[in-house]
């Protein structure tokens, strides 16, 4: 009765236009008032306690770092590099957009941030080069979703937090699927551009290419330091009397903090595209998004706590096992559930609400937690570009000034590419597990 009320209220509030975070929290509070024997004053503790965890601190710091990189000219130089390398090919600017999304994904953990960072430069550039506007918007809205698959990734941090899975392992597991998705999108962009005869750009000279590589050197150094710091050297070794220890140097949270200071140093002292005086404005601008995201986390953790307290995840896991379901069928069902959930909710609440329910069943069926995590993240990418709640669609609509409905149509063909990649990743676990297994053993 209580669980039914919880879900009925949740959907009622969501459909009334109550923000996702408050819908989650209010449904918990109402159910508690009527059904649970839980001191309500503890809600005061839960609000602060639910996000007071060191691993979750990586989320605001990665968001701040990517905002500084966007304002400080780091993103601009990454886009220049991608355009010089691929701009001359059929659909070159679209391919450059996807490549830029992949570059930006290595310094940002959010797909919405990637759409804004790349889209605000590449959508006007593609339109100016006489590309179809719908095609341009669709490419960026979809390409941006790579932001949560290639490390670092906010979605993976939250998944790791909920399931107690190693975040560095998840980050490493996202690399190959991220490259696979990126190259699949590029291939489709190439084929469409060739068939539709989009205009070709001039091939960059070797000198131009070298200049753009030189200019983007510092921008590329940021992901090298972030990921190099998280993974460190695979094993210890010595050069003469000098002993170099292997293993991680930073935790993901520390890497996020280091990336803020690297981004500041590079933007202010090397590229000189930003001044110290602009920092408060950047923090104020990005603060709303951080507040929104962490308030969802607070309330979704409370929702998950309620489900856990009622024993829902274990009952569902036991029921799935009693059905003698094969892991392949289970994963198909997971994909269907997450696809529909992704249509109505943002990635963060989905991971926090659905994964505690599905994860125990996946473990009982012997599915690798890292592989399961990557499947979840790719589903979140699909959710980000499918209506009615697709964060990337909202962002693409805002920056392209295209009505939301048209952006949805523009992104529709590209969802098929992600759906194809999702199926491959679901049924070929090797893609997700090979790198973490090689590195961590």
């Amino acid at each position, binding site marked *: 009765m209580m669980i039914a009320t919880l879900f009925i209220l949740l959907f009622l509030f969501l459909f009334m236009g109550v923000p996702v975070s*408050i819908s989650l*929290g209010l449904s918990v509070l109402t159910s508690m008032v009527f059904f649970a024997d839980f001191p309500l004053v503890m809600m*005061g503790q839960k609000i602060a306690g639910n996000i*007071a965890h060191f691993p979750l601190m990586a989320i605001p710091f990665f968001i701040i770092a990517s905002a500084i990189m966007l304002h400080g000219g780091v993103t601009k130089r990454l886009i220049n590099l991608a355009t010089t390398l691929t701009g001359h090919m059929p659909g070159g600017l679209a391919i450059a957009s996807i490549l830029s999304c992949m570059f930006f994904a290595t310094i940002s953990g959010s797909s919405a941030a990637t759409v804004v960072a790349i889209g605000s430069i590449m959508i006007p550039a593609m339109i100016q080069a006489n590309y179809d506007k719908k095609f341009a918007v669709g490419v960026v809205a979809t390409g941006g979703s790579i932001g949560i698959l290639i490390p670092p990734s906010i979605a993976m941090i939250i998944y790791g937090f909920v399931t107690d899975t190693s975040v560095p392992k998840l980050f490493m597991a996202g690399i190959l699927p991220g490259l696979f998705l990126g190259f699949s999108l590029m291939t489709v962009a190439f084929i469409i551009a060739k068939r539709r005869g989009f205009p070709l750009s001039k091939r960059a000279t070797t000198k131009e290419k070298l200049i753009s590589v030189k200019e983007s050197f510092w921008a590329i150094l940021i992901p090298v330091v972030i990921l190099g710091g998280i993974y460190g050297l695979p094993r210890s070794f010595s050069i003469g009397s000098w002993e170099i220890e292997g293993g991680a140097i930073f935790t993901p949270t520390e890497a996020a903090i280091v990336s*803020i200071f690297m981004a500041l140093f590079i933007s202010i002292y090397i590229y000189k595209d930003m001044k110290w005086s602009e920092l408060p404005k950047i923090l104020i601008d990005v*603060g709303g*998004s951080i507040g929104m995201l962490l308030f969802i986390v607070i309330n979704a953790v409370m929702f998950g706590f309620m489900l856990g307290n009622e024993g829902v995840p274990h009952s569902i896991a036991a029921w799935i096992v009693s059905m003698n379901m094969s892991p392949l069928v289970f994963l198909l069902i997971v994909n269907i559930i997450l696809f529909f959930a992704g249509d109505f909710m943002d990635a963060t609440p989905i991971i926090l609400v659905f994964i505690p329910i599905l994860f125990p069943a996946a473990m009982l069926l012997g599915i690798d937690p890292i592989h399961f995590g990557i499947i979840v993240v790719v589903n979140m990418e699909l959710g980000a570009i499918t209506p009615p709640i697709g964060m990337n669609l909202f962002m693409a609509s805002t920056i392209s000034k295209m009505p939301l409905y048209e952006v949805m149509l523009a992104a529709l063909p590209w969802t098929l590419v992600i759906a194809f990649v999702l199926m491959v990743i679901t049924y070929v676990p090797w893609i997700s597990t090979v790198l973490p297994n090689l590195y961590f053993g």
Partner: protein
Amino acid sequence: MNYKIKFILIDKSIVFFEDWLMVIFFSVASLLGVYQVILRYVFSMGNDWVEAYMITLVVYAALIAASVAVRRKVHVELDVVVKLFPLKTQWYIMLCSYSLCLLYVFALWIFGLMFVNQVILYDDVNILSDLPEWIHYLCVPIGMGLMSIRYAQELVILFKKGPMTTDKIRKI
């Protein structure tokens, strides 16, 4: 000074308070974070209090930022269903929706105050930060209080403006 000017001045003061506290908390938390990294990896030492302070500052900043998100209307919501209704019904639904939001954050404000009061009575001190425990939880009444003010403001504005579509509400 008439009421309208007084309200504008109060609003500007709250905006200033929200924005600058958020900037200070995020900045100090980042500085503490980098200090810890340098201590740990350059000097092979570390202080437990740094991590505790950093987390507390981020939680404070996040709860204030949640209020900023109300002001900037960036909280994610699902409005496709609401949009299916006629204009006046949309307005009524949005009034209900904002009232529910206000009710929730106001309830959390009360629970937050009650919890802080309880913690003060127990006189606990945090082991890691060595600060009185209530300081770690004071962010809840502060953040939820600010959010309550913001939702009350939104509700009054919506009520005064009269029936309009959800798209227009978002542009106010």
